[in-house]
């Protein structure tokens, strides 16, 4: 078996094993309500972290607006499930439709944002994704969509009146209310597995190698005839789509979804970035583990919540210095376990 294949199977296996353990704990009544409530958020963050890791680790571009894609997915998914909740009674089917729409909308946004921006250098992409996230949040907060016997009503900025028995789809800052609770831990895990399957297949394909070639040296990649824009767009769109899928899961776990700075703002994007960096840039398994642990820890240590973000920030700086500072590189080369016990593979020596 190839090394990468084995590596991927370990990740899939790990997810399945954790899933089974959790199911066992729930079945035997050993799982607290707090933990059960955290299961779906954990899945959500894992999925979005996988998406962001594709962008940061393989495309080599920093996005600090992935919460914006999550937001697009959450809102478009929830609107669809609300609209169809009376015609489609099967919960799973309804979720799948919502998921498809949410993912597609997020992918579309990723594509549209990507066209102008991916021509630019790294720092610009970061700031534009940030700008995009803020714009989305801003617009959704003033977006009113309602449906009644007269048909659909749209408005930007001004609250509208709809008939008494009409249905509010998005009610401005009040967001979407009374969303059917469709998300479950099982669906979350299935989504994680699908996301993993997609990203693993992408990075090991011809396209994936092209994407990594662009990351490592754009100019030489271009000189061997790789279509930079196409591959960059491909990776960025898929990354946005996965974040959107996470958003759909997020929305259907809450009865009301609103676009506040806390859930779809800059802070959320940074939190997901922390998951990616802590789990290891380029390691999807690491992203999942980091997302799960960092969602659990603050809830288990509620008293420490004041220090949580401070600790995250120190972790971010320390990880970067540890990985990139020349002095630390020398230190690691001299004292690494690899040097003493294992043989140096080309990958690890990098």
């Amino acid at each position, binding site marked *: 078996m190839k090394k990468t294949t084995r590596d991927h199977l*370990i990740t899939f296996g*790990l997810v399945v094993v*954790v899933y089974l*353990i*959790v199911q066992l*704990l729930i079945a035997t*009544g*050993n*799982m*607290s*309500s*707090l*933990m*059960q*409530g*955290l299961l779906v*958020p954990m899945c959500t963050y894992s999925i979005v972290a996988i998406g962001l890791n594709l962008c940061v680790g393989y495309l080599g571009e920093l996005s600090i607006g992935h919460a914006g894609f999550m937001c697009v997915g959450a809102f478009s998914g929830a609107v669809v499930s609300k609209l169809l909740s009376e015609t489609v009674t099967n919960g799973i089917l309804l979720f799948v439709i919502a998921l498809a729409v949410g993912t597609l909308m997020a992918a579309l946004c990723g594509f549209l944002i990507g066209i102008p921006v991916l021509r630019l250098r790294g720092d610009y992409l970061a700031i534009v994704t940030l700008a995009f996230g*803020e714009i989305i*949040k*801003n617009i959704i*907060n*003033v977006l009113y969509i309602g449906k009644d016997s007269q048909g659909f009503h749209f408005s930007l900025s001004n*609250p509208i009146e709809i008939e008494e028995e009409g249905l509010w789809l998005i009610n*401005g*800052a*009040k967001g979407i*209310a009374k969303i059917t609770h469709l998300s479950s831990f099982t669906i979350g895990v299935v989504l994680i597995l699908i996301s993993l399957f997609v990203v693993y297949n992408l990075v090991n394909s011809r396209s994936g190698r092209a994407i990594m070639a662009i990351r490592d040296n754009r100019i030489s990649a271009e000189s061997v005839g790789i279509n930079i824009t196409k591959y960059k767009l491909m990776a960025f769109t898929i990354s946005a789509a996965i974040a959107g899928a996470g958003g759909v899961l997020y929305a259907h776990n*809450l*009865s*009301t979804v*609103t*676009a*506040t*700075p*806390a*859930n779809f703002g800059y802070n959320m994007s940074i939190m997901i970035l922390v998951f990616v960096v802590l789990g290891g840039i380029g390691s999807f*398994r*690491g992203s999942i*583990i980091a997302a*799960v*642990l960092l969602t*659990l820890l603050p*809830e*288990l240590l*509620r008293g420490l*919540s*004041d220090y949580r973000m401070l600790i995250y920030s120190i972790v971010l700086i320390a990880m970067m210095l540890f990985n990139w500072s020349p002095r630390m590189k020398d230190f690691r080369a001299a004292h*690494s*376990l*690899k040097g003493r*016990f*294992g043989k140096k593979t080309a990958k*690890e020596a990098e």
Partner: protein
Amino acid sequence: MKKKLVSMFLALALAASLVGCGDGNEGAGDGDTAQEGADSADDAGASEGSFKIGGIGPITGNTALYGKAVQNGAQIAVDEINAAGGINGYQISYKFEDDQNDAEKSVNAYNSLKDWGMQLLMGTVTTTPCVAVAPETANDNMYLLTPSASSTDVIEADNAFQVCFTDPNQGKASAEYIAEKKLATKVAIIYNSSSVYSSGIEASFKKEAETRGLEIVADEAFTDDSSTDFSTQLQKAQSAGAELVFLPFYYTEASIVLTQADTMGYDPIFFGVDGMDGILGVENFNTELAEGVMLLTPFAADSDDEMTKAFVAKYQEKYNEIPIQFAADAYDAIYIMKAALEKAGATPDMSASDICDAMKVAMTEISCTGLTSAGSEMTWEANGEVSKAPMAVVIKDGVYVAAE
């Protein structure tokens, strides 16, 4: 190799933490709550048969003032009741969890309280998290009494009740008050469109103002992201000749509005709602600017009835500050729970769901006089809405004084 070791270790740690939590709270989730989690209860000696009341609110973050006020106000009521022999002869265990005014954290806090064995929920303090928690409580059939979350969305299910006015009522009452006292005819509104609370009040205020013949000359919004600069909104109000500016949002932003209006040399009557309460507590805020600001709130700390005096004295002694309306709401909430529990004849060995069923009936039968009812009695409809008399407060010489 190292990588693999690390990931295996992490996986083990993860599994261990999952199992660990499961064990630590064994049985806490499945209803027989009387004995469980007593070790974590604040109240020593409360282990045999006590009512477990949980509270949720922001005690960190930028609305921390409200959460802390509720936490403290309720604590005073709990201490009083416990000292006087408890409810139906049983003591109260009281535990408060932080939600940082965040919907997701609030649901986590609720789950965490459920693990503790909570039977009655006093919370949540702020509206947005409460809208998220309320459906969860409806699913579990857990009794919810919110001291201050004022949206009508909060009380949609039949298990939820409010101590404070609903947003539509606040907006309506404000417009009524302004029209009746003839404070102004030309009115400007500035509101936070990204807040459910603020936009809810704005909508009903506007409706009522129009029927009452008030002329709304400017209706300007801002969002959480642009809540530091109000010069444009004030500019519009000023050039439209508004005599009164209605500010249905929280005190932090209101303090900026007042300061900027002063810089502009614009001096209309400012009229706020309960979120304005606390403006005098903003550090370094020039309270002279708040002179004459009116707000619709059911509680004034300077009131001279015995109950308020005693409460303010106790609060000052214990927490060294003058209580705001939120503390009073919470104090009332605990006493309302007591009255309803006594009416229903509930005992702590009942499950949360049974208590809730009993409370749904009892709440519509009781009537309470509290700190926040302006001397009249509070009663509840089955829909959870409170009916009580509104009251306006004006800021005079740096303190809140009952208007008229």
